[in-house]
């Protein structure tokens, strides 16, 4: 059963999408792209990647990306 907290998150996302004038699917595309980049460096935990976009009172966008990884991949440095 959905709780009011779930509904609040949904509402905030819907309002944000309308405010940003971007389709709802854009966050999913962004998530997929970021996942591709981070996967090159980290062993990402499934479903832990969360991109969030917030708009402040001055109309500036705050983009936050959080993720949990289980290990760091060995990357050859130049």
């Amino acid at each position, binding site marked *: *059963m*959905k*709780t*009011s*907290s779930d*509904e*609040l998150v*949904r*509402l*905030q996302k*819907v*309002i944000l999408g*309308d405010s940003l004038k971007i389709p709802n699917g854009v966050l999913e595309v962004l998530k997929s792209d970021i996942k591709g980049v981070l996967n090159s460096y980290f062993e990402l935990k499934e479903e832990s990647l969360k991109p969030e976009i917030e708009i402040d009172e001055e109309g500036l966008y705050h983009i936050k990306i959080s993720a949990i990884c289980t290990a760091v991949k060995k990357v050859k440095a130049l």
Partner: protein
Amino acid sequence: MSRVIVITSGKGGVGKTTVSANLALSLAAKGKKVVAVEGDIGLNNLDVVLGVEDKVVYDAGEVAMGKATVMQALVPINDRLSLFPATTGALNIVTADIFVDIIKELKKSFDYVLIDSPAGIEDNFHRAAMGAEEGLLVTTPHIPAVRDGYKTVKVLASYGITKVGLVINRVRGEYVADKMMLSPDEVAKVMQIPLYGILPEDDFVNLYGIADVKNKRSGIGYSYSLLASYVDGSDKKLYDCVSQYGGFIGKFRRWLNI
């Protein structure tokens, strides 16, 4: 000084006309001279909710054509409340400019001019918004209604209506207490407009449209009385729909569904 308030929503079916009628009755019960204006021309129902659909002689259409004066078209509800009707025939006759002139005329005789706007942001909304100085946004605590309401607030701002209060209708206190329904505070925070009123779900209003606004023991009546005080500025108290469902007795009440 007279105030002109458009009562609007984004989504239809949230109880806008019911709120318009009951707020008008509540303000009148507080001694204010009020006129409720039918702004939903063509899909008018304010006359029905106020119970005077058979008393309408002239309407906005006849006023626009010069067949009646604004004051002749008024339908008295009680000593302090009148309805300014607009029936289907007025739809293509009453332009936004004529509507604004009618509102200006009504302002001279009433403390409050409440315009019941249609749902949505189409032509009828344009006419209703053109005549107003302030707004009351009615929504239910459900995502589609809040989303459309949020858009409507932005549209109102484009008409220069920046003083907008939020009224959350059909709140189920037991669901808010159980954290199954968005709380009025949460909705107001997301919408970023001040909360003016909380109206509980009420079977009597669902059936008959009108609340007993003079009866303080009636939850819905009391909530409308508080809303009228908030709008009027005489008191800034909000209806508490949750506390009766808190604690042991509240849990028992929820269990019994009363």
